[in-house]
């Protein structure tokens, strides 16, 4: 997205959030219209199930309606704030699923990555391109890069990563940890955090 289009979109979303905080239902509807398709895509990827993704989207927006006032424009971008709310609810669901279905691991398969749409690695590179931080992603080694992409876009846990990438759990954990450390250094040097 062109930088000024993004600035304009963010300004618009901030205004809509501010008006939502004052219980303006029209602003809230517009906020939904502009952001729900993105947020639904995020939830679908992680939960891999339409009904669950719909529920998360619904819960998230009801939550936004009640807590739009706690959004502080000076601290985060509006879409980042909204996406975090949705992601955290998705991950919370996965966490509860893991507790509820202890036997999931025994099914061996468990993780079906060959789902619709672009692969996580492609998404990671496309996302990095959009932010002009591709060099940070490319600097990662293949294994760690794949692990980060699967964890971020598909919500895979360490043990799921280990099974999917056919690597020992310890290896996967240190891949993820080191990749995050390298990403932090690289992204911060490009001025990603404010």
């Amino acid at each position, binding site marked *: 997205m062109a930088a000024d289009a993004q600035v304009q979109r963010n300004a618009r979303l901030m205004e809509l959030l501010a008006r939502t905080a*004052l219980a303006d239902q029209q602003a809230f509807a517009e906020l939904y219209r502009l952001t729900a398709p993105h947020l639904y895509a995020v939830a679908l990827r992680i939960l891999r199930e339409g009904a669950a993704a719909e529920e998360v989207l619904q819960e998230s927006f009801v939550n936004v309606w009640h807590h739009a006032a706690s959004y502080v424009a000076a601290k985060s971008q509006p*879409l980042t704030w909204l996406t975090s709310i949705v992601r955290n609810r998705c991950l919370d669901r996965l966490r509860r699923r893991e507790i509820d279905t202890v036997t999931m691991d025994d099914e061996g398969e468990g993780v079906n990555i060959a789902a619709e749409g672009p692969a996580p690695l492609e998404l990671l590179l496309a996302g990095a391109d959009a932010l002009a931080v591709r060099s940070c992603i490319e600097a990662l080694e293949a294994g760690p890069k794949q692990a980060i992409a699967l964890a971020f876009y598909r919500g895979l846990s360490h043990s799921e990563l280990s099974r999917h990438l056919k690597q020992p759990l310890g290896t996967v954990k240190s891949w993820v940890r080191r990749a995050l450390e390298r990403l932090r250094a690289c992204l911060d040097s490009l001025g990603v955090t404010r």
Partner: protein
Amino acid sequence: MNFRAPGRADALASAYVLGTLRGRARARFERALRSDTVLADAVRRWEERLIPLAEALPPVAPPVRVWSAILARIRAEGGAPRARGSAWTSLALWRGLALTALAAVLALAVSLLVTAPERREGTLVAVLAAQDAKPVAVASADRAGRSLTVKLIAPVELAANRTLQLWALPEGGNPRPLGLLPASGIVRLTLSSPAEQTLHDVPTLAVSLEPQGGSPTGLPTGPVLFTGPVQRLY
């Protein structure tokens, strides 16, 4: 779990945002997050780093029933959970405000408050203005409410690493921080006690320029940019 060991907070925050922090550890971390500002700050920075990477996802239109369900839920809950009346939400009115003189702004703000369906009678209002008397922000609170709504009526240009902080200037005491303000838009600051109590000895509010995250000392460290008298409409 020790969140305080060096580097630990940041490593946990990164795993939390990426999603690999799972199980009970995730639940524990989330609980700690609510009260630990160091953790919350680390999480916010990791969200800034990672979450925008999701923006390249191809959007998927959710079924229409999702919006219907959201609307049904918020309407069932009363439709306006913490809101003022609709007059407050009219942006045109607020835009108009920015153009008028200080006195006119105050009069309008008062009339808005009067027409808004108030839960309780009695409101505190302050119009904050720059040195040149140009109004920049309106702060208002129900006297019995525990929040202060601040609307920036003229956007403020801020360097990326600076923030605006709102202060209560009590008679004969040190300034007390009320919260951070965005450079534009509206913010609702939470007060620890009802507004009339919080501001009972406060004739003036002020906004100072502070480093990101607010004054590190608990007192204004930067220049005071705007001030305004507190009006009690009761």
